[in-house]
């Protein structure tokens, strides 16, 4: 069996809620609550879920851009949650992140050249070497070398995302966490970036964790997909199983809610009642029970385990759990 490049075990991130004049802790938001999964080299793992379900927090905790509250993150077999700052900095060459809003993540006062070459500084490359590397990277992402002297505001959204990708590629990373990289883009530009990212994966043998809320985009690009709800993974399997044979009632509702651009497809839509509950006060038992059309008595009190119910198909739901025994 292939050794995963990344293994996430029981990852948790709780944010304190502070209140009152003294800023005392008055509660906590369980943004990520016991999430486990692994990613194989060369794979694209998609993570979907509604706003606030903990996708970005999961991504940032893996890179320790925010410190996880608990759990293990193993990169190539090594638990990185205990590494000191210096070792972590070295490791970051191998693990990169791309954000949704490329504008917010690019320093507006720096030229593209400076932005892309910044991660190269740790190598002790000569100025000339850095220059030619920047030129190479710009071409890889479909820009031109004359763009190097320009500033971020002189680019369109899609071009800025290309700059963000070029920067992420600078140190030949192995894993890139892509947090909604195409969500802010127009459809016609979105497909350009998706194609670019697929091409780069093949060209440089990259591994992606691809976070998005658009299920069609995630299906298109991913090999496997995990569905999150209120800080937890509720289903994880390869993309065809997930889309052809969803098991968790939330996954079913989510898929049925996506309007398809084809007037001939009449689909049964599962309309969920109400909104996603607050993660600072999640429901007891199965967190989905307040909206689940299939909820049973047991769901109110006992949290279902995240278990394998078919080969490579993991689900956290009492309808399936225990079915294997």
């Amino acid at each position: 069996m292939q050794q995963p490049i990344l293994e996430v075990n029981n990852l948790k991130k709780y944010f304190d809620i502070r209140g009152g004049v003294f800023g005392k802790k008055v509660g906590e938001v369980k943004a990520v609550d016991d999430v486990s999964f692994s990613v194989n080299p060369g794979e694209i793992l998609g993570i979907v879920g509604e706003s606030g379900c903990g996708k970005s927090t999961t991504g940032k905790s893996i890179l320790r851009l925010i410190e996880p509250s608990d759990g293990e993150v193993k990169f190539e077999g090594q638990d990185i949650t205990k590494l000191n700052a210096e070792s972590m900095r070295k490791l970051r060459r191998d693990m990169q992140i791309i954000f949704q809003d490329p504008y917010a993540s690019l320093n507006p006062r720096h030229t593209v050249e400076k932005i892309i070459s910044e991660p190269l500084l740790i190598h002790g490359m000569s100025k000339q070497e850095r220059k030619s590397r920047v030129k190479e990277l710009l071409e890889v992402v479909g820009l031109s070398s004359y763009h190097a002297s320009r500033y971020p505001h002189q680019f369109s959204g899609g071009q800025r995302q290309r700059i963000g990708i070029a920067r992420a590629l600078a140190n030949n990373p192995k894993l890139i966490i892509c947090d909604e990289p195409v969500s802010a883009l127009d459809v016609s530009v979105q497909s350009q970036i998706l194609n670019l990212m697929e091409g780069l994966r093949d060209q440089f043998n990259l591994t992606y964790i691809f976070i998005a809320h658009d299920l069609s985009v995630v299906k298109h690009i991913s090999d496997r997909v995990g569905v999150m709800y209120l800080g937890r993974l509720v289903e994880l399997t390869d993309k065809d199983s997930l889309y052809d044979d969803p098991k968790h009632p939330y996954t079913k509702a989510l898929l049925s809610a996506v309007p398809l651009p084809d007037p001939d497809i009449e689909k049964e839509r599962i309309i969920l009642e109400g909104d996603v509950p607050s993660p600072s006060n999640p429901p007891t038992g199965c967190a989905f029970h307040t909206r689940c059309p299939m909820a049973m008595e047991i769901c109110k009190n006992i949290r279902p385990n995240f278990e394998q119910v078919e080969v490579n198909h993991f689900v956290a739901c009492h309808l399936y759990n225990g079915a294997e025994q």
Partner: protein
Amino acid sequence: MTEAILKITDLQTHFFTDNGEIPAVDGVSITVNKGEVVGIVGESGCGKSVTSLSIMQLVPSPPGKIVGGAIQYKGEDLLTASKKRIKDIRGNEISMIFQEPMTSLDPLFTIGNQIREAIRIHQKISKKEASRKSIEMLKLVGIPRAEEVMNDYPHQLSGGMRQRVMIAIAMACEPEILIADEPTTALDVTIQAQILDLMKKLNKEKNTAILMITHDLGVVADICDRVIVMYAGQVVEEGTTREILKDPSHPYTKGLIRSIPKLHEKDQKLYSIPGTVPKPKLGVVGCRFKDRCEFAHDRCFSDSPELFSLGNSRHSRCFLIDDPERKVAQDAAANIGSQ
């Protein structure tokens, strides 16, 4: 006989900025019939919002100005109507909902206060009666605990609930037409499904016409009878939802449809239209799509295509329509491309 409720003819809305005059809406004509759901689709910046804001003269002015065209509501010219008349129509006969409901609700007043006032501006009923009607509307749009929510302030509600409140306010006066500018774009899909269902119900039960502005072709397929495709300030294609989605004519519409990943189809290589959406500017020579179009030919660089008729209410702003031979070549190329 179909009755036109809203008729926009050759609308020109321009912005006068330090960087010159921007023809954000450049000769747009749209008709919405009674009880019909019409979609306007297009990528960001193509002029969808400015078109919808022009209808009720809500374009920020300066820098914006309607410099040409006509907008008729049931035959009455809105562009020459008095301010008082427009105010009367707004919310009463034509209602609008926007993408970000937080900005359209007043943070200082309770939800109840705002719905009640909206109803009382247009209907002479007692405060008590208006309260009763408000609660009824909140229940209709699926707000749980409607009585309590009446006393809540906007920030106490989630985005989906705020949008439902906006729809409740918009619907409270039973308008003839609802103009919805990306009403679900900021919402999660499960909440979007609730809102779209609600809008369909209102359309069916009250025969309210809807002008639905969106960039999501899935939303179009779900709710619209007819679609207008905009590009760079102009209408480039128009037809029934089925015609546009199943048998698009304009190269831009075709490219757009092939660019979206589809949930219901197995792995496909995504097509991508090269380049980006151009900023609107004056004095463009030739077709606005020419720099991105794989079928661009000499004529596309020298002349501006008109909106050619394809029979019935179908139109396409492309010289290929006018040139059967090239059209055949285009169809063949598209077939190869999609295989």
